């Protein structure tokens, strides 16, 4: 993974997505092979200094406040115990001004946002997110997408393990599809989707342009507008990431 790159990890249950993330964190020991994080062996101190981790099961101690939890992680990460940074993190995840709220008074979605803020403590170079939106409503999911885009701008590499294909498709630069512990497909969402053409909605009706690729859209729209047509919408035809996912997963199993 490169700095500022968002990589989506997809695969059916039991494919090894969470295990891969845990191996990168040093939580499980690989039976074979080697995992390296920012050049250091996974699980080593040098690797853990540089990563942030949001586990799939994101429980936090019920008795503490959001601020206390973030302060603990600042101290464990060796970061400056800055109250301003803690407030900044809470604001980033949509929990502004809730420093003194106890974890047991939070909804599941708020607790997941707090877990995300916790994983960002110490300004990690690599962020490993295991199902980061499992407890979030649509507003929360959009906020997480914005956070991920913000992190990309900051040069943070993010490995996003998610079952939500639409989410992965929206934010990830690259996608890897796992099955039984092996990568069975890899590429950008566009490469994997293989759209078979475009559907363009104009004042004359819906027109289909077979074989036209995503990169051809600006030229196509310019041509149609140049011909005096009014273009209302352009949609890729078929070949969604879901199709690519199913093809990769079912193709392997058959």
């Amino acid at each position, binding site marked *: 993974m490169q700095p500022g790159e968002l990589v989506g990890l997809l695969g059916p249950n039991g494919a090894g997505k969470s295990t891969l993330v845990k191996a990168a964190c*040093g939580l499980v020991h690989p039976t074979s092979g080697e995992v390296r994080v920012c050049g250091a062996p996974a699980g080593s101190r040098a690797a853990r200094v540089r990563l942030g981790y949001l586990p799939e099961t994101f*429980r936090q101690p019920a008795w503490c406040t959001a601020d206390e939890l973030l302060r603990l992680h600042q101290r464990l990460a*060796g970061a400056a115990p800055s109250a301003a940074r803690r407030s900044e993190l809470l604001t980033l995840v949509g929990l502004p001004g809730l420093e003194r709220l106890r974890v047991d008074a939070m909804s599941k979605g708020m607790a997941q946002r707090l877990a995300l803020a916790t994983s960002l403590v*110490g300004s990690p170079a690599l962020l490993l997110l295991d199902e980061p939106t499992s407890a979030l409503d649509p507003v929360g999911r959009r906020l997480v997408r914005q956070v991920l885009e913000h992190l990309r701008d900051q040069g943070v590499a993010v490995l996003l393990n998610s079952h939500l294909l639409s989410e992965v498709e929206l934010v990830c630069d690259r996608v890897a599809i796992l099955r039984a512990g092996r990568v069975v497909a890899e590429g950008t969402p566009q490469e994997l989707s293989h759209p078979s053409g475009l559907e363009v909605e104009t004042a004359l009706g819906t027109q289909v342009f077979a074989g036209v690729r995503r990169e051809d859209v600006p030229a196509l729209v310019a041509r149609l507008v140049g011909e005096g047509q009014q273009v209302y919408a352009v949609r890729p035809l078929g070949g969604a990431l879901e199709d690519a996912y199913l093809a990769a997963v079912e193709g392997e199993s058959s």
Partner: protein
Amino acid sequence: MSAFWVLVGWAVREAVRRRVFLVVGVLTIGYLALYSLGTRVAFRSLGDDGPNGVAVDTHDLAGATLTGLAMFAVLFLGSVLAVFLGVAAFRGDAEAGLLQPIVTRPVGRGVVVLSRAAAAAVVSGGYVAVVYALSLLVVQVNGSWSPSSPLGPGARLVAAVVVVSALCVLGSTVLSTVANGIATFMVFGAGLFAGLMGQVARGIGSTTLQHVATGVSWGLPFEALYQDGLAALGSQQDGLTKTLVQLGPFGGGAPASHWLWAYLVGYLALVLGAAVLVATRRDL
């Protein structure tokens, strides 16, 4: 401040701020009230002679026996607290998802385990010291009696609870929360049972049983510490009074070897070292 002390402070705060700690406080007040009532009634009911006219110093016997009773109660309550604090220290917290965010920080798993053990020892040991001191105060106020050397038995009780804490933390690296709680209490019960068995063995002159009881005391030294504490309690009496005090309310006193404290240090190092080793190798 090192990660170890950060985590010790965190675990101590967790221990005292969880709502269950309120229950411990209420139960302790209940124990002290009951103990105070019993002590008051016992001292007021004292005659000049023992049962059936046996010549004993009844005041001394009552004071030492009631203090011995308090020692047992404090050991039991302290051990319950130690188990409560250490029962989920590693695997239980890992199964709940609480441990992973901590151990993925640049903090060794060994540091996490040792800090949890230290916090459990500090809280349960502190609790034992305070409740033991209050129990002595109750006996002093109600019966104007106190042991000649109160610190010795108290220190042994604190050390006994530290041993229980360490065993519980070791158990937590292998067993889930409920299984570890059951196992630690069974170990605790086995230790107390071995102490009673040793006393019976001395009474009937069975060397085999004595060897078994001694072996268990080496394996579970909290029992040896408790017996040594009871023996220290009876050191100021003599004659039949001393014999009766040494019988104790729940298992008798027996002085331990002078090497007990040195052995204890090695024992704790071994138990906690094993806990660190298991924790380091375990997949989470």
